[in-house]
């Protein structure tokens, strides 16, 4: 296992990062001007890293497939960003945020990384406020907080239901400042097609200009991949249509180990699927669980009557409803972590209690919250003995102020008024905790190739807590990479510009061009979406919320066969010299067809249930996840060896010195 050196610095947990920063090498400002860095992906992690590295003086090139850096999918995050500020004085601290995150991740993340994340979290808020990010405030002018699933403190900062948008626009603005100074060159509508290695080190990329179809060579002294997650392997997810694994997978094929691919977060509160035409799923922020109560009918016949349209939820009396999260988990109730909430919804729907046509939906009900807030508002407005109507009207106003944009979005999509009738929700693929294996410095197993944000595996273990993705993306980009990458680049001050006419660039470019020709040369039987949807069905049915060995073995076979079929028979109209969205999709789906198989293999290897990975064979009699710390307390990092089924497993043992491993309980 010599290869997987996590490079976690020695010393007490709370001092590791400070000591490490004090000991690593720095690059002097004059030399930074001679060093180039490529950053692929311009979301929170990539955008923040680009801004900071350019500000430090490096020459930065950014690449994104979108038409502007501002469109990266970080923008869609709704609920908030965690930080251990303890502004509410409710007992928060770096340690508590660290503890909650490790516990929430079901003890499958790396202690030192998580502590660092908690440690820099407070700085993120300071930074963003200085940049003019308009976080929600209280009447006294100070910042407001809300609570999120899996924790007992209020540490989440937010900007209405658009926190990701505001943070991304902050990072985008910081990038713009550097673009205006000429320190960042931004390549939009460009897709990374391959990583170029020279003497074992990442020294550049091959990119395709998505407008002209040109294949371009770009060199640098280091390459950062901040390209997000791979949730779209399921076809239907809350990811953007273009979100893909290509950059990470290309790096994997060039030697970067891929860690824990089976750790996928299925988010409990999404709008249910409405039909076969569906192209993507829409999330309803977890913050809704602060006020919404989740339930299904107690009796099967009621559920059936609702499905057939003979009964409405409003007709069902309080005692005929099963608030199953409150029943099963009295301590956390509707605010259990996402994996627990999702599985509980699936359990009820599988048992026949689902409430929409497809039987795959549960209610998220705001009636109690409307009543509670309405009474409070009546009191503070001086209305004594308010009648029911007044209470409801006032309560709806409060709910609208809190969640108005989400309620509006729901109504536009579902065509029902969630103020009057309970929302219907069902779990959907949302975030992938797995990703490229990185050490403490965020370097992958390819020297000079770094991975940040959702693209790496390091901080969330087997399950991510709400409002932690934004925190990790910005922490990696603003505060971690700028230090650790400098340490690596201090060896490159005499290297000079990397020539793009090296034979390694020739070879990589040829490989890319051959691959594109091969895609264009398919026999033309089926569209790219046909294959993507088939892959998605296999993934959802056999590698979804509950997995077992039989299904996973089948998935491996089926995906492998589908991949062969794809390369033989895919149909891509037009040509490769110019804009061709079908060709773009095809390249991405081709990589999903490899990743999907590795995903299943990883899930099959992990004979335990932890976080988002639930194996039916490993559960308690009450249906709770059964972890196996003795045999599986490790990161599974896979080395590419040709076909995904031949990937070789490397383990990084997880050491817990500052936290006691316990069975996660939210009861």
């Amino acid at each position: 296992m010599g290869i997987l050196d996590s490079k976690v610095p020695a010393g007490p947990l709370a001092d590791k990062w400070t000591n490490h920063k004090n000991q690593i090498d720095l690059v002097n400002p004059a030399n930074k001007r001679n060093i180039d860095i490529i950053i692929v992906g311009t979301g929170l992690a990539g955008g923040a890293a680009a801004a900071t590295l350019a500000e430090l003086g490096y020459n930065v090139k950014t690449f994104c497939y979108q038409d502007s850096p501002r469109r990266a999918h970080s923008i869609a995050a709704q609920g908030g960003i965690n930080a251990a500020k303890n502004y509410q004085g409710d007992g928060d601290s770096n340690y508590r945020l660290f503890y909650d995150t490790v516990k929430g991740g079901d003890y499958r993340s790396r202690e030192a990384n998580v502590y660092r994340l908690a440690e820099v979290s407070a700085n993120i808020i300071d930074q963003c406020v200085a940049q003019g990010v308009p976080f929600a405030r209280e009447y006294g002018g100070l910042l407001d907080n809300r609570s999120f699933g899996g924790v007992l403190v209020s540490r989440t900062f937010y900007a209405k239901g658009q926190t990701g948008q505001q943070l991304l626009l902050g990072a985008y603005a910081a990038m713009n400042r550097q673009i205006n100074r000429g320190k960042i060159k931004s390549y939009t509508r460009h897709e990374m097609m391959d990583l170029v290695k020279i003497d074992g080190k990442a020294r550049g990329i091959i990119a395709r200009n998505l407008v002209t179809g040109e294949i371009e060579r770009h060199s640098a002294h280091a390459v950062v991949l901040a390209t997000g997650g791979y949730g779209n392997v399921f076809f239907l997810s809350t990811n953007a249509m273009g979100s893909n694994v290509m950059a990470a997978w290309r790096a994997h094929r060039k030697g970067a180990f891929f860690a824990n691919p089976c750790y996928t977060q299925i988010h409990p509160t999404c709008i249910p699927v409405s039909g076969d035409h569906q192209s993507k799923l829409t999330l309803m922020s977890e913050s809704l669980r602060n006020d919404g109560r989740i339930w299904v009918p107690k009796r099967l016949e009621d559920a059936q009557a609702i499905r057939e349209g003979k009964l409405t939820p409003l007709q069902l009396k309080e005692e005929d409803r099963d608030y199953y999260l409150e029943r099963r988990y009295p301590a956390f109730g509707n605010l259990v972590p996402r994996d627990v909430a999702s599985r509980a919804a699936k359990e009820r729907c599988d048992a026949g209690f689902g409430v929409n046509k497809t039987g795959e939906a549960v209610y998220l009900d705001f009636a109690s919250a409307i009543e509670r807030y309405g009474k409070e508002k009546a009191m503070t407005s001086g209305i004594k003995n308010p009648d029911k109507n007044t209470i409801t009207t006032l309560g709806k106003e409060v709910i609208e102020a809190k969640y108005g944009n989400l309620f509006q979005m729901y109504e536009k999509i579902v065509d029902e008024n969630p103020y009057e009738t309970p929302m219907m929700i069902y779990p959907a693929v949302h975030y992938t905790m797995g990703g490229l294996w990185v050490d403490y410095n965020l370097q992958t197993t390819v020297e000079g190739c770094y991975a940040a944000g959702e693209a790496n595996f390091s901080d969330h273990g087997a399950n991510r807590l709400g409002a932690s993705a934004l925190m990790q993306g910005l922490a990696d980009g603003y505060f971690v990479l700028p230090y650790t990458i400098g340490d690596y680049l201090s060896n490159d001050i005499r290297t000079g510009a990397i020539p793009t006419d090296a034979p390694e660039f020739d070879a990589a470019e040829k490989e890319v061009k051959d691959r594109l020709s091969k895609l264009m040369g398919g026999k033309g039987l089926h569209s790219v979406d046909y294959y993507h949807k088939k892959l998605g069905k296999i993934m959802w049915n056999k590698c979804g919320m509950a997995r077992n060995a039989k299904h996973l073995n089948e998935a491996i076979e089926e995906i492998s066969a589908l991949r062969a079929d794809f390369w033989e028979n895919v149909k891509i109209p037009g040509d490769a010299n110019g804009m061709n969205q079908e060709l773009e999709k095809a390249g991405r789906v081709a990589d999903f067809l490899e990743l999907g198989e590795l995903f299943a293999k990883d899930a099959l290897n992990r004979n335990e249930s932890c976080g988002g990975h639930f194996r039916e064979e490993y559960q308690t009699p009450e249906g709770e996840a059964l972890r196996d710390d003795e045999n599986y307390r490790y990161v599974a990092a896979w080395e590419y060896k040709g076909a995904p089924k031949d990937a070789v497993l490397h383990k990084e043992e997880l050491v817990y010195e500052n936290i006691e491993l316990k069975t996660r309980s939210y009861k």
Partner: protein
Amino acid sequence: MKLTLKIWRQKDAASKGKMVDYPISGVEGDMSFLEMLDVLNEQLINKGEEPVEFDHDCREGICGTCSLQINGEPHGPDRLVTTCQLHMRKFNDGDTIVIEPFRATAFPVLKDLIVDRSALDRIQQSGGYISVNTSGNTVDANAIPINKHDADEAMDAATCIGCGACVAACKNASAMLFTSAKVSQFALLPQGQIEATERVQNMVRQMDLEGFGNCTNTGACEVECPKGISLENIARMNREYYSASLKG
């Protein structure tokens, strides 16, 4: 539902484009407008024709990638939604729907319904930021208290998604609503005061350089804006601009 689509087809930036008719059937009310186009494209691909290319990404109304002029309106007939969140239940069986790209001199067509909106990025690059280093070594966040009303108003301006509907709606193809949203966000916050003069001057200069037209107060931009960005922002930008002119 059966519909007739009249869609702008254009091979690339250099070619001439034209409207082409496409009949489509089996459209359901629960489909989004873009899912309806997915169905059309699947049919075109299976017939061996080239699909219609259009910009889209998040499909939840926040990334600002999708566009489309639908029956003459940016993002179509519904209010406060982007095209990706427009649902087919807003149309009727037998309707003819005209689908064009966003039209503006500053938005050249790249292919079919895809336009180049990088001019909007360049406006932001010219001054849409606060010049603080991203080292995290700033004051504590609560050391800058901000009146809730101002913070909320700044947030309202900041929710612009940069889709360009305001430009496409405007008979002058003006980008005033877009530019003023960013100017307003910072004008309303204490953090934005220090660079206020340069910011508004630089952003307005870049806006003019890109070939966007002037504002004649028709208010079409506000009506069509999927995020409800208010015209007040334009008034605020004008005020900022004049006061910047006086300061020099």
